[in-house]
């Protein structure tokens, strides 16, 4: 429990301040707006875990480039006129992904631990700001969580777990579901009027859409499923495959970036091929050639492939080359010439017959 706030002598003279977790989706957008409607000063925080769907993939894949190049959290912040602080938590977040105390959701998404972690980070920021700035610091934390919206993390029973395990306790307010939840400090102190908060629950999105209309918010991002790649089955399979092949559960930022790109084919436990599917991915993988052995076709246009792991024989190298050739313009030719380049820059050429579809078993496709 947090201590009771000192009584306010001139409530009208103090504008209360909240830190809001801004994901870029509609719910957090509405939560912020609901606070602004009650005269609260809100600043946003957005956490970069490395698994976010934002940005990268759009920058990589050409077909996505025109569609949505913007960062949704920044866009939301601008729309709402709030400041936004983006925090890189990718290093500390590893422990959340690798050892979630409350387990995973349908895929490798540790949603409950993730929420606790993020609210805890916001709580630490709140405490620090209060220490540095006193009244100019922040009074409470706001999230767009809705009771019952997600099977794992947003159930009625998990809401108090997030509040207590994050250390935010009753300084954590969920404006969209507040009336279904126990009263929090900002409500008790009269900083916000509970009656003007909401009682949304469940997976039905209609109330949110109606509220967006009421607030005059016409455009917003509609994330499918969750806010990150860990809710994606194919992505989770690739991550699980990586851990299995390495015999240990760990990852670096580069690993999880590469899982977002290309076709992943594992012909052997000790190596995997990451084959670009189009020009944007080609350019992205290009940047990793100094770290990985790479294969490219030279006798015809074709993809770039990185080799994650090693070849134990020339046979294995030739098999990999044949697979890459299969995805080149020369797939129907008798022979395709490829360049094999070591990370150090040493290159040589190999000529192979492109693999036939049935020479690449389905089980080699990861994801």
């Amino acid at each position, binding site marked *: 429990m947090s201590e009771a706030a000192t009584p306010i002598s001139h409530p009208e003279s103090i504008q209360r301040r909240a*830190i809001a977790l801004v994901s870029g989706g509609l719910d957090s957008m509405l939560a912020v707006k609901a606070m602004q409607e009650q005269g609260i000063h809100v*600043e946003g*925080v*957005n956490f*970069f875990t490395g698994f*976010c769907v*934002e*940005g*990268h993939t*759009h*920058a*990589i894949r050409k077909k996505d*480039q025109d569609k949505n*190049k*913007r*960062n949704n*959290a*920044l*866009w939301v*912040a*601008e729309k709402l006129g*709030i*400041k*936004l*602080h*983006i*925090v*890189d938590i990718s290093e500390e977040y590893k422990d959340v992904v690798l050892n979630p105390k409350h387990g995973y959701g349908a895929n490798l998404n540790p949603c409950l631990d993730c929420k606790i972690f993020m609210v805890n980070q916001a709580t630490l*920021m709140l405490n*620090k*700001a209060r220490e*540095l*700035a006193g009244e*100019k*610091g922040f009074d409470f934390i706001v999230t767009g969580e809705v009771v019952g919206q997600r099977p794992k993390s947003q159930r009625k029973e998990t809401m108090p777990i997030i509040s207590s395990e994050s250390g935010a306790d009753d300084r954590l307010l969920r404006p969209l579901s507040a009336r279904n939840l126990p009263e929090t400090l900002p409500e008790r102190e009269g900083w916000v009027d509970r009656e003007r908060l909401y009682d949304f629950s469940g997976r039905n999105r209609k109330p949110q859409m109606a509220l967006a209309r009421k607030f005059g918010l016409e455009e917003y991002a509609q994330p499918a499923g969750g806010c990150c790649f860990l809710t994606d089955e194919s992505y989770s399979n690739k991550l699980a495959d990586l851990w299995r092949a390495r015999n240990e559960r760990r990852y670096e930022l580069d690993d999880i*970036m590469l899982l977002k790109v290309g076709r992943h084919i594992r012909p052997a436990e000790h190596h995997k091929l990451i084959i670009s599917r189009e020009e944007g991915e080609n350019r992205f993988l290009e*940047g990793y050639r100094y770290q990985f052995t790479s294969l490219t076709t030279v006798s015809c246009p074709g993809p770039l492939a990185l080799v994650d792991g090693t070849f134990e024989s020339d046979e294995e190298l030739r098999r990999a080359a044949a697979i890459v050739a299969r995805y080149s313009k020369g797939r129907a030719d008798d022979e395709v010439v490829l360049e094999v380049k070591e990370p150090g820059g040493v290159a040589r050429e190999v000529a192979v017959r492109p693999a036939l579809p049935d020479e690449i078993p389905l089980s080699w496709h990861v994801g």
Partner: protein
Amino acid sequence: MTENVHELDVRRQLCPIPVIKTQNKVNELAQGAVLRVTCTDPGALNDIPAWCRINGHEVLETEQDDREVVITLRVGEPSVAL
């Protein structure tokens, strides 16, 4: 008179990392300082100016060629450090 221009190289890093690094660098600089950020992710062309507008920093110039995006900004008023 030429101003002292601070440089930030975030080439080959993907959004939002260029934005995060810009933000962290800006937090170290005094109000009025000029920062030149060089990126290769074209998304930075939207994201960094958006971040500047939101947080009260002024974009002085953006340049783009085939490979690189360069954004020059002037640091605005500091906010409560979150």
